[in-house]
């Protein structure tokens, strides 16, 4: 039997257990080209992803850009305490969590429903057409999407106001983007509009893996289509749903920076400002590096903790998990 682990280095024909340290080095010597093809990129990733972590020191300093690292004054957790005593940050935190939860929940429900509907469509042509159209917005930038949304919601000629006026539901056009109570809805439904088609792909994939015999058996037992969906399709995609939930747990504090940033305006800042926008404002416009970095650290640490927590919960309940 050929040993798969070192099938390339034909000279090494010892049993795996006998390969010594020295031997490892000589194998590595023969794999120079592989090293050349991979190591530079790993170093590149270390530079661009891990090295910036050193910048977290700014959150514990009274950082002044003109001073060298050793000359900075250390201030401990001052910026973190300040963050949580500041109303603006707490409001940003609330907005971030609210928008995330609304978008995620709406995104899940709509994607699963549309996937189930698509799965029930028997004409392949219609199914393909709906899929092609609904995937498309996923590839547009948020700049374009928010531009289109602003047109749809426009006071002057927006289709939404026109329809509601024609139906007599409202007396005069509403400035949708200027009223605080509508903003989270707009964020949630814009997310759905852009991503619902794309998000169905993964569920449709899971549905093709369901054994057709189950449907046939249910048919013989006299199940209608709704009961087949409830008892076969939904349980069949449950592991996928749970994996997707774990993955989104790690993004609760991300709240999609671009959409609220592009749709916000002065009138609705109180409900539109997220942690990311807060970091941008304090870090770049006001040059308060320590405070902004502290907010960034808080966000990323919470995200990682939530991801691990969700993963553990899924593990404990015996469900599919990510890591």
């Amino acid at each position, binding site marked *: 039997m050929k040993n*798969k*682990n*070192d*099938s*390339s*280095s034909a000279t090494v024909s010892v049993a795996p257990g006998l390969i010594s340290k020295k031997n490892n080095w000589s*194998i*590595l010597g023969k*794999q120079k*080209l*592989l090293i050349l*093809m*991979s190591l530079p*990129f*790993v170093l*590149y990733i270390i530079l661009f*992803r*891990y090295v910036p972590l050193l*910048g*977290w020191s*700014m959150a514990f300093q009274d950082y002044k850009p003109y001073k060298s690292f050793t000359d900075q004054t250390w201030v401990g957790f001052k910026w973190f305490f300040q963050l949580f005593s500041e109303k603006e940050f707490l409001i940003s935190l609330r907005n971030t969590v609210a928008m995330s939860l609304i978008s995620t929940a709406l995104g899940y429900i709509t994607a699963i429903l*549309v996937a189930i*509907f698509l799965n*029930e*469509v028997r004409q392949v042509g219609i199914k393909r057409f*709906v899929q*092609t*159209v609904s995937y*498309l917005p996923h*590839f*547009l*930038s*948020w*700049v*374009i999407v928010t*531009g*289109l*949304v602003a*047109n749809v919601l*426009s*006071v*002057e*000629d927006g*289709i939404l106001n026109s329809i509601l006026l024609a139906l007599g539901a409202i007396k005069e056009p509403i*400035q949708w*983007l200027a009223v605080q109570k509508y903003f989270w809805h707009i964020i949630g439904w814009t997310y759905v509009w852009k991503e619902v*088609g794309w998000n169905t792909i*993964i569920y449709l*994939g899971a549905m093709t893996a369901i054994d057709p015999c189950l449907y046939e058996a249910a048919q013989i037992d006299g199940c209608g*289509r709704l009961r087949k969906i409830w008892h076969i399709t939904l349980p069949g995609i449950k592991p996928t749903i749970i994996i997707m939930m774990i993955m989104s747990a790690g993004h609760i504090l991300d709240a999609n920076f671009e959409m609220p940033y592009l749709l916000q*305006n*002065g009138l609705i800042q109180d409900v539109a400002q997220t942690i990311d926008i807060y970091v*941008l404002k304090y*870090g770049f416009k006001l040059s308060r590096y320590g405070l*902004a*970095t502290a907010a960034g650290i808080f*966000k990323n640490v919470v*995200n*990682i903790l939530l991801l691990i927590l969700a993963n553990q919960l899924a593990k404990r309940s015996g469900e599919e998990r*990510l890591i």
Partner: protein
Amino acid sequence: MIEVENKYQSYAAAKRRTRIGNSIFDLIIYIILGFLVVATIYPFWNTIAISLNDGLDSLKGGITLWPRKFTWRNYQDLFQTTRIRDAGVISVSRTILQTVLSVFCTTMLAYALSRKEFIIRKPLTTILVISMYVNAGLIPGYMLIKNLGLVGKYSVYIIPALVDIFNFILVRTYIKGLPDSFVESARIDGANEFTIYANIIMPLIIPSIAMIALFTAVGAWNSWFDTYLYASDKPKLHSLQYVLMSILQQSQNQNMSAADAGSMALAAGAGSTVGKATPIAIRSAITIVATLPILVVYPLVQKYFVVGMTIGGVKE
């Protein structure tokens, strides 16, 4: 006899009921999916109609599906503006460069780390995968780019995006699914690792390359935030999306009325002949120009989506 007949009748009735139930069910599904399709297409359709309509006429409102006074004028004005042309060149060139380089680097890395005999494969892969979950944040990231001297340079669009870990995992999973015999027979023929990668593996992984090329190109074409962070004071480096973003923001901040933002943006470009160009017309025309490349490429790569998504979903 009667009993049997009754049974048959009730069976037939039940069957008829389910058939009616079925068609009602189908009807509901088609209505919902039809609404989804209309809601997805209408905003584009409307924007195209406005972009092909006479600018002054559009101000009166009421354009829905077809232009009232058809004209190419808005697009002509757009392409005569230096600012838009420059932005177009930046967007196109950075998209092509970034896609080619990123596909090359990512697939090469994926090939090297898919070789089971490569003895430092595991630690290197771990470093890469963990980096997906590590996020230093906006300010430290900016400081790094600044210390590397990339702020305000064209290379800031290319260098930070050479390797994408999600794409790396996608390609590596694809390569792992290929039979080992391809690589082994090439090795017996005396090919070195790079030749195997370039001549044997590359042609075999075209579907996954199409996938990551699409992801990278769309990302590059759509990005505006890097311009905003690193090159907003360098008009020569502004991308199309950034220009569109600033025009939309201006008009939104003026209380969402169709303000002079569009013509202001155009007037900023030297030698523009702004006659009938109105903001709403210009906004629509830029939106369509920024969308068009995606609409053109999209059908070509669509057949690879499902392959890519299911591979990407495979657990590590």
